Every structure is written in structure tokens, then in C-alpha cells.
């Protein structure tokens, strides 16, 4: 949850007079929170004390009401300076000393006002429109000559994440990933969130979409049916993948194999390695996977479910891709931009069995969005958890087991909740 905040100073005999206690009580009673950032206590009775208090509230209006209430007790808003701006010297080049963003909510001070930076994402610059009093993140490659970019750290503040109100795995993760942790409880909590998000999504509320970024291991390991079910049941609303996940998913539909391995036969079938190429060729001939599903060529699986449910699919290609399938974006900056465009409205992200797509998606997500990273390789969830967010959960487990267990949990959960 995004918090408005302002730092205030209190000085004088604020301890024995209970003025500090009164100010802090007032903040809490009005529904705000505070962070006592600095406290100097007078060494003698005559010597004054000094406190620096960061006041936080859930809205700008509440913050202003709280400040209004505590100012008569001596709480003065700390003088802050505007952020410094410099013009981008050329297209695609930030000015020297540019401020690089984190994935945490950020505000910049423009003309004596704190302005929310839109589109927060790590490792970008901040573009400020002083006249409109707005600010947004900008990737290095997209900056235009003359754009006003924030430089230095003055007048920039990063808002620490509040612990989420829900008492679930997302609220007390300590950014560590363990393969020895029982998964049942974590998956149960993820399922509860997905049920809540689906209710919000169906009511048309913003910020209730669920993103899944996944690799082909989902299909190879046997998680295809579970994921297709999750999509059909409207638990997933956006899919990020590469060329391989859709190719092998549709290969199963057309040939009963993934990467030549017969799902029913339980062994590699003769000439099976050609199946994914023939699948890609077929879809290229049809024009798109959407057309293939609509014309009845592809009937089952993940991509078919996506088309049935109108799930937004962003396919980002890599240099080893075969084909690729129509719709796969082969320019990686274009792919990044397409993924970025799909982020607003996401309320939760599941990053399953793909180092490349998990890390790329993780970099695009603000820390406020709960994310789950599932991989058999502990290095991937660890890399994601190292981003330092309360709301990143890492699970070291097989993609298919995760998706099946999640689907099983949801089948129970959703029927119970919606009965």
C-alpha cells in the first residue's frame, strides 16, 4: 500500500512535558503511523531534546489532517528542497549523476510538493514534468534529448514498504529461500490471494490481475493441464513467456509430445524432436496461435485456454528460438516495453520455471506487488528474493508439482468460498 509521508521536527522539553507522547498518540489516534527517525535527549534538565518523526498516512488528505493536528504542539514540517533536474544531453542518454530508481514507491519534490513517481520499476531514470507536476520512470533507451531528468538524491524519497495487512506468507517473509520449507502452507496462502484477486477481477476492480511468467518446463514436467485449468478458471489474466512454452504446449495438442517426448507413451517417440518445428511451422502457416485456436486446429492446453479467456499474452523471443512463432517479439527492447505496458493492474505475479522470464519480470515489478518465484534451481528464487521485498516468496520446487498443488488447493478453496 502506498503511503503519503512527511518528516516533522519537534524540539524543546518534549519528553517530560509529554509533548512527544501527545504528538505520537495523536498520529496513531488519527489513523496514521510514525517512524521515530532521530532522537536526541537533553543531558540536563535545561538542555532541550529533539526528535525527528516521519509521519505516514494512507492518503494525502489524512496526512494533511494529521499534520494540521500536530503542528500546534510544535511539530514543524522539515524543510525539504526540490529535486534537481538536468536535461538529457541526447536521445537514449541520461544526464550525468542521474538518479537510478529502486523498485520501491518513490516521490520527488517539485515546486515544494511531493509528487508520486508513476510506473515505478528498478534501474530506471525519473522524468519530471514541472509544469504539470507529474513524474514518471523512464528507461535509459527511451529518454529524449532535453527531457528533464532527476539528478542526485536531494528531493527524492523512497517509501519503505509497509508490512501487508494480510497475515499470510507474504507478510513475514524474511527474503530467504529454502528447499526445506513445507510448501503446503505457502501454496495455501497463494491460493487464498488468488481467490480474492479473482473476486476483484470479476468485479472489474483495478489492480486485481494475476500475471504468470513461465518457461517450457511447465509443459515438459506435466504442469500443462493444471495451468490451463487455472487460466480457464480465470485465476491468471496475463501470460509472459518466450517461444518455447507456447510451441511445446501446442506440440502436445498436435502430436502428444513435448520436445519429442510422448506424454502418453512415456518415452521419446521416433522423430519426435521434429514435432515442435512442425508445430511452429503450422502456426506460422495459419498466421497466429489465436487463429489456430479459433479455427479449431489447437483445441487444448495453455494457449487454447488463453484465447478462450482473452488472456493477454506477451511472447519475448531469445537468440536460440526456432521459428519463431508469429507474435514472438524478437527485439528485446520492444519485448521489454510490451511487458512493461502489461504491468499496470497486476496484483500478483507467479514466476514459474524460467530464469530468464522470472528475472526480467521481477525487474519490471514494483516491490508493492506480491510475487512468487518457483524453480527447481534455488539460485532463481534467491536472485529474486535478493531484491529485498517483503512480498517476494521463493519456492524451490518443480513447476508441475507447484501448479498441480495450487490447482488442487484452488478447486477446494474456490468452491468453498463461492458456494
Amino acid at each position, binding site marked *: 500500500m502506498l503511503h503519503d509521508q512527511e518528516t516533522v521536527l519537534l*524540539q*524543546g*522539553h518534549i519528553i*517530560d*512535558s*509529554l*509533548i512527544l*507522547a*501527545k504528538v505520537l498518540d495523536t498520529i496513531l489516534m488519527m489513523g496514521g503511523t510514525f517512524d521515530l527517525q532521530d532522537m536526541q535527549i537533553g543531558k540536563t*534538565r*535545561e538542555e*532541550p531534546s529533539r526528535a525527528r518523526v516521519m509521519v505516514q498516512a494512507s492518503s494525502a488528505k489524512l496526512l494533511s489532517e494529521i499534520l494540521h493536528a500536530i503542528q*500546534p*504542539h*510544535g511539530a*514543524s514540517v522539515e524543510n525539504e528542497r526540490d529535486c534537481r533536474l538536468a536535461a538529457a544531453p541526447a536521445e537514449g542518454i541520461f544526464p550525468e549523476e542521474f538518479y537510478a530508481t529502486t523498485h520501491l514507491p518513490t516521490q520527488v519534490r517539485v515546486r515544494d510538493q511531493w509528487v508520486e513517481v508513476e510506473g515505478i520499476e528498478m534501474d530506471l531514470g525519473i522524468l519530471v514534468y514541472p509544469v504539470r507536476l507529474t513524474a514518471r520512470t523512464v528507461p535509459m533507451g527511451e529518454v529524449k534529448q532535453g527531457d528533464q531528468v532527476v539528478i542526485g538524491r536531494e528531493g527524492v524519497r523512497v517509501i519503505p514498504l509497509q508490512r501487508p495487512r494480510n497475515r499470510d506468507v507474504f507478510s513475514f517473509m524474511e527474503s530467504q529461500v529454502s528447499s526445506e520449507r513445507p510448501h503446503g502452507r505457502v501454496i495455501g496462502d497463494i491460493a487464498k490471494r488468488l481467490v480474492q484477486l479473482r473476486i476483484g477481477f470479476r468485479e472489474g476492480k483495478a489492480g486485481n490481475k494475476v500475471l504468470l511468467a513461465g518457461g517450457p518446463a511447465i509443459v515438459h514436467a506435466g504442469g500443462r493441464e493444471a495451468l490451463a485449468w487455472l487460466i480457464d478458471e480465470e485465476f491468471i489474466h496475463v501470460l509472459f513467456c518466450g517461444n518455447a512454452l507456447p510451441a511445446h504446449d501446442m506440440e502436445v495438442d498436435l502430436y502428444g509430445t513435448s520436445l519429442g517426448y510422448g506424454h502418453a507413451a512415456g518415452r521419446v517417440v521416433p522423430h519426435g524432436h521434429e514435432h515442435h518445428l512442425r508445430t511452429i511451422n503450422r502456426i506460422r502457416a495459419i498466421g497466429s496461435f489465436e487463429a489456430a485456436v479459433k479455427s479449431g486446429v489447437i483445441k487444448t492446453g495453455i494457449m487454447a485456454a488463453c484465447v478462450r479467456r482473452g488472456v493477454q499474452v506477451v511472447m519475448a523471443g531469445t537468440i536460440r528460438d526456432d521459428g519463431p512463432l508469429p507474435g514472438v517479439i524478437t527485439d528485446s527492447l520492444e519485448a521489454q516495453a510490451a511487458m512493461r505496458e502489461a504491468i499496470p493492474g497486476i496484483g500478483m505475479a507467479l514466476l514459474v520455471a524460467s530464469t530468464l522470464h522470472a528475472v526480467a519480470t521481477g525487474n519490471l515489478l514494483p516491490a508493492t506487488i506480491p510475487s512468487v518465484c518457483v524453480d527447481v534451481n534455488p539460485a532463481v528464487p534467491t536472485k529474486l528474493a535478493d531484491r529485498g521485498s517483503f512480498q517476494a516468496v521463493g519456492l524451490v520446487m518443480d513447476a508441475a508439482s507447484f501448479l498441480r498443488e495450487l490447482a488442487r488447493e484452488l478447486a477446494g478453496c474456490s468452491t468453498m468460498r463461492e458456494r
Partner: protein
Amino acid sequence: MSRLLVCPPDYFKIEYEINPWMRRSNAVNSDEAIRQWHHLMQVLEQDVGAILERMKPVPGLPDLVFTANAGIVAGGKAVPSRFRYVERQKEEVYFADWFRAQGYEVVTLDPGSFFEGAGDLLGFPDIWFGGYRQRSDIRVYSTLSDWFHREIIPLELVDNRFYHLDTCLCPLSGGDLLYFPPAFDRYGQEVLAERIAPARRLVPPEAEALRFACNAVCVGKHLVLPAGCPETAFLLASRGYLPHPVPLDEFMKSGGSAKCLTLALD
């Protein structure tokens, strides 16, 4: 020997309304006000033994008579008031000039800050209390604490009938405190209870607090307080003080009484 600054009520009347006591319709009987003021002076000089320094009254400044609001004086230093209401801001220069003429080191607060002198700042030798919220701004106390090297405990005034601290709190020479707790919030009440032993806390009945029983001048064991506060007088006498009730109801029309009419000098 106590020295007090006073100002004759030659021009005292109600020309504006800046506290809940003031009603322009409730006209001051000037002759009576002058009589009451002279009676108060007589008690202070003759019964209490105080030395009075008289300021020259100024036409058009009816509240100059309330010299408690001239500023605060200690250790040869004087800080003149910065009044909240424009009606009284015109007094500032006269008080500051008087302090200068008397040889005090005059230190002035920033324009735009509010501080109404000994009306809001009073205490014991080692600890002062600063009333805020109604007239003075709490922020001035950290500056004054620095200038006077005193601990100043700010106390919020929560009832606008007790708009200055000296209308509801009076530190007494023996370390006792005459005060009316409901004029403070629970934090203020707690602070005072913490600092002053129960036996030393003297509380007037509400009816007498509203007659400004706490607006008293304490010189040694003598206590000059408004007439009509018998229970308070009895309470003070039982603690060994010598109460001197003086009728001051003409000044109550303006929201002031004995203490408001004097400023302790050094």
C-alpha cells in the same frame, strides 16, 4: 523585595472582543475600575510590601493595564511579548521601550511568533511552565528556554475561558501550586501531577476558578487574589499563606484579574 510593573487604568475599557469574557455591551464602569485598581495597588504596596513601577498609560490601548502580558523578565534580560491579536500588537513597542528605558537587555522574538509574556510563562525558580495553543505558540518556549537557561514545560490550554496560563495556574512561593486541572488536557494534568506532590497541589472549586481564583499575585507568604473566592482563600490559609482578597470585577469583564494587572520584575 518584589518589584512589580503596573499601568494605571486611565484608558481601560472594552473596545474589542478577543476572549470569551469580553463583551463590548458589558461596559466597564471606569470610576469603579480606577477605584479597584488603586485598592489593589494599596494592598500590594502596604499589605504585601511590593515595590511598584508605574508605566504611563496610552490612549487607545485599553489593555496596556494588563502588564503581565508585557513580556518576561529574568536575570536582567527582558523578552517583550509578540501578541497574537492585532488589537494588542500595538502595545508591544511601549512595553519594549519601557524595558529598554529601565536598562534591561531586551531580546526580541521573531516577528510572526506568538508569545504573551508572563501571562503564559510562569513557574518556580528551577522550572517554568509555558501555556500554549490559545495565545502563545509552543515553538517560542524552546527559544526562551535557551535564552533563560531554564527548563520550560509546555502545557496545552484546552478551555478558551482560561486563555492564558496565569488564569488557571499560579506557582506559590512555598513550592505549592494553585491550579485548575480541567483547563489542561490529560497530558498536562499528568505532567503537573508528576512534578508536584499531591499535598502541594491546591485546586480551587470550579466556580472560583471561573472567578479567576488562580490569577493571584504571590509575594512571599502573601497572596493577592480576586474577591469572591472564599474556599480558595481558606485552602491557601490552611497551607500557611496570607490571602488578600481584592474586588476586581471591573477587570474580569475583560478577562483579567490581580495577576494580569502586574508583571514581576527583578
